[in-house]
Structure formats: structure tokens, C-alpha cells
């Protein structure tokens, strides 16, 4: 009387929680306000840049995976995050052809080569950016002033530079708060930093929106809160202590937190679980290591900003963190050593 051939499978026969594509989709949602604010701040050039970054990442992912016959490569949404974040880390009027090159590198070199989603050992978006920074160091350290009056009517000449040519700048450039601090010993007002009234990378300007996005993800349990908390806490702690010891040399804690790419990096990039440690304690240690590195590079290093390098370095040590920091397995340890 029972008609069907039964299906058999292994237990558990029910599953819960959210699925990977759901998580990824939500990260995209959390990033959208940041992206929208970036477009509002920098105008058309930022819009074109984000579109190009997304397109390059999505296309690369699609074609490479097609090539090795992996099915539906874009359905997990992860590459959308990569594309968005990659775009958000670039200066707003970077030539689009450079953006495209970096996007291809990000996905091909940062992700595909390692086996795609879940296997990359470095943060793909940052691999793309690090490549661009090393390849075109001048272009990527030239910044544009925010809220230019003609930002919605005028596309900067540099954005539309022809492939393989040097960009020509035709608009007001601005110095980032960090380079002002490093080279001129001039700190920017925290309120301006928080609200995004400064020049900088496309997406790093509004710390507030980034924090809100992060809170949303943490509330939905889609992000490991320990990493941003440990990271931001470390930077804040070191800078506050040192600032207190010598305010002339060392910038204050709040300035450090809200300037540069720290917020975007801490909230959206250091938290990329694929390339970070898996255990709670490991994640904390990872956050602390990155925090220290950021501080060292910013304050004692040659470069004004070190978030990208610090996170990549964190990625490189995370296998070791995973190796060394393991939770004590139930029933093991000293008190239970079997006699």
C-alpha cells in the first residue's frame, strides 16, 4: 500500500541554522548602505568603480568555474562580497582598467587557484588590492576630496583612463587623515571621521554605517564578533596608552579607530571566516595579532596605512593559530589522564 520507494540518508535528518548562501547574501545587504554612502560621497566615479569591481570579480569567477566545470559558480554570493569589498577598498577615482585588473587577480589568484570558496588561504579582495597597490602604487595612493560639488555631473578623467595608460588627474585631490597624521602631524576631528567627511578609499569613509552593518550581522549570528572586538580593542588600547604617554608622537585611540580602513577591515574583512581561525580563542588571538600589526605599521612603519597588510599577515598565521589553539576536548586534559 505504500507507493513510493523510500529515500534513505544519514542522520541527522533535520537541519537548522542558516545556509551559506543566506549568510553571504546578508553580508551583501549589510554592505549596501556602505556602498550607497560611498556613491553619495564620491559621486559617479565611485559608482562606476563599484560596478567595475563587481563585474570583474563576477565574470572571473563565472568563467573560471565554467572552465573547470563547477556548477552554478555565482549562486553562493560569496564572490559578490569579494567584488563589493574589493571595490570599497580602492580610491574612488582609480582608473577603471586598473580596477578590472585587480578584480580578475582577486578572484583568479586569491580564490580560484586555491580551489574556490572555502579553500582560499588569503582574503581574495585584499589579494586583489595588494596586487594593485604594488603594481600601481602612485595611482592607489592618490586620493580624491569628498563631496565635490560636481561629483554627480562630472566623471574624473582618471577614472576613464584608457587601458595600460597612466591616469591624468583633473580634480582636487585630498590627503587622507592618516597621511595627514603621518606626514604632517595633523589629526582629523573624530566627528568628521565618524560621519565620513574625509577623503580615503571608497568605502572606508563612514565608520558609522560600517559599524551598523557589522552589528546587523552579529545580531543575526552571521559573523564572529570576537574578531572585530579583539581587533578594535587592541588598536584602541595600544593607542590610548601610548597617546597618554606622549601625545605629540602617538595619535589618540579614537582617531586610530575611525581613520583609514580600520573599521571596514575589522568588521568586514578580518571576519572573512574562510581565511581566519575557527575556534573562539583562536579568533580572539587573530584579532589581537592583526590589531598589533596595524598599529605597528601605521605608527612605526613607512606606510600611512597597514590594515590590508595586517589582515593578509593574519591570514598567513591563521593556520598556525588553528594548529596551536585548540579547545580542550571533552574528557581529556590533566585531570582526566587515564591512569
Amino acid at each position, binding site marked *: 500500500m505504500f507507493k513510493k520507494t523510500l529515500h534513505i540518508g544519514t542522520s541527522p535528518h533535520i537541519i537548522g541554522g542558516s545556509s551559506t548562501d543566506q549568510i553571504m547574501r546578508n553580508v551583501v545587504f549589510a554592505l549596501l548602505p556602505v556602498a550607497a554612502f560611498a556613491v553619495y560621497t564620491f559621486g559617479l566615479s565611485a559608482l562606476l568603480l563599484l560596478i567595475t569591481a563587481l563585474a570583474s570579480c563576477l565574470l572571473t569567477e563565472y568563467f573560471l568555474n565554467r572552465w*573547470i566545470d563547477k556548477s552554478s559558480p555565482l549562486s553562493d554570493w560569496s564572490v559578490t562580497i569579494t567584488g563589493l569589498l574589493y571595490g570599497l577598498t580602492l580610491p574612488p577615482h582609480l582608473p577603471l582598467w586598473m580596477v578590472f585588473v585587480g578584480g580578475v587577480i582577486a578572484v583568479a*589568484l*586569491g580564490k*580560484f*587557484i*586555491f*580551489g*574556490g570558496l572555502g*579553500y582560499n*588561504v*588569503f582574503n581574495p579582495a585584499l*589579494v586583489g588590492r*595588494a*596586487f594593485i597597490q*604594488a603594481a600601481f602604487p602612485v595611482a592607489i595612493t592618490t586620493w580624491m576630496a569628498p563631496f565635490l560639488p560636481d561629483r554627480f555631473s562630472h566623471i574624473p578623467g582618471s577614472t576613464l583612463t584608457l587601458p595600460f595608460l597612466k591616469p591624468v588627474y583633473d580634480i582636487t585631490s585630498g590627503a587622507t587623515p592618516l597621511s595627514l597624521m603621518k606626514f604632517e602631524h595633523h589629526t582629523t576631528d573624530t566627528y568628521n571621521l565618524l560621519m565620513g567627511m574625509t577623503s580615503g578609499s571608497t568605502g572606508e569613509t563612514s565608520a558609522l554605517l560600517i559599524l551598523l552593518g557589522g552589528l546587523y550581522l552579529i545580531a543575526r549570528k552571521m559573523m564572529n564578533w570576537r574578531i572585530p572586538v579583539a581587533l578594535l580593542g587592541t588598536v584602541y588600547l595600544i593607542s590610548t596608552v601610548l597617546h597618554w604617554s606622549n601625545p605629540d608622537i602617538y595619535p589618540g585611540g579614537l582617531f586610530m579607530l575611525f581613520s583609514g580602513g580600520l573599521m571596514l577591515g575589522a568588521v568586514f574583512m578580518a571576519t572573512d571566516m574562510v581565511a581566519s581561525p575557527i575556534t573562539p580563542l583562536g579568533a580572539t588571538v587573530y584579532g589581537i595579532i592583526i590589531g598589533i*600589526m596595524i598599529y*605597528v*605599521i601605521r605608527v*612605526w*612603519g*613607512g*606606510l600611512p596605512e*597597514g590594515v*590590508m*597588510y*595586517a589582515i*593578509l*599577515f593574519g591570514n*598567513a*598565521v591563521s*593556520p*598556525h593559530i588553528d*594548529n596551536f589553539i585548540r579547545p580542550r576536548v571533552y574528557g581529556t586534559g590533566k585531570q582526566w589522564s587515564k591512569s
Partner: protein
Amino acid sequence: MKTESLWFIFLNASLINNFVLAYFLGICPFLGVSGKLSTAFRMGMAVIFVMLISSMAAYGIHAFLIWVDAPFLQLISYIVVIASTVQLVEMFIKRFSPSLFKALGIFLPLITTNCAILGLALFQTNKGYNFIESFVFALGAGIGFTLALVLMAGLREKLDFAEIPLIAKGVALTLLVGGILSLTFMGFAGLGG
């Protein structure tokens, strides 16, 4: 006129101008022995050890050659002395720790004739470091080498369990990871300056 503090020499040799990732010295063991963490670590230790020995040896020989006024023998004496010293060490290890010897396999003789070791000796002479500076330089270089090797090994052990596309399997993948690591180490530029 001294411009470089010991601390800076150390930082420079280990991080900023990491022997492997910035100077391209000792790439062969970097590619060859970085597959397993434990081996990489032991190799790193061996390299630090050999670097210290050869740095001191090179310092002595340099002084000797200046004394006899035969600078043209620099290269050949460096390499011969270093090679023999290391060969002694090698025999020693083979005798007293066969397991270590096995783990390092063919690379022990390669340490003897490794770019990083000779490069270290030549650089310290070129830069005119005194004895202490040479020692710190060797220590920094060795630690930097070990750091690069160990980071690489961690990543490669992780990548052993990844679905690497066929085309990238093997050395190409290791080189790419090395490239990204090298990019990462660019972040240290200007440190201590």
C-alpha cells in the same frame, strides 16, 4: 659614522628585506622544505644555526684576507669554509640524530651550498658590519628565513586539503602563495626607519 642600530639591522634582515621574500635567497629550500610544518621548522632552526656559524666564519676569513691582502680569494674561501663547516655539522647530525637527517633529506647538503648562507656572508662584508652587527644580521636573516618557511608551511599544510585546480597543482601554487606572502611582507617597508 654609524647609521644603523642593531635593532634596525635585525628588523631589516628578518622582516623588511626578508631574505626569502625580498632578496630571493634560499628559494630552493623555501619551495622544497615548506611542505610540512615540522620539517620546515627544523630546517629553519638548522638554517639559523648554520647562518650564525657561517657569519662568524666569514667575519674571520674576511679579516684574514684583508691581512694577507688577497681580496680576490673572498668568494672561494667563503664558500669552501662554509661548505666544510656545514658538512661537518651535517655529519654530526647524521651521526647523532638520524631522524632529523632523514626529515631534511637531500636538503642538508643543500644548506651547505645555499644562496642564503653565502649571500649572508657576502652582504655582511659588503655592508661593512662589525662582528656584533654581523651576528645580529645573521640572527635576523635566519629568523626571517624561518618565519617565511614556517608561514609557508602552515599555508601549504592547509592547502593540502583544498581542491586545487589541476593546472595549479605543484610548484606553481607554492610560488603563487610565495608571491602573496611577499606582497604581505611589503607592509613592513620603512619599519624602524
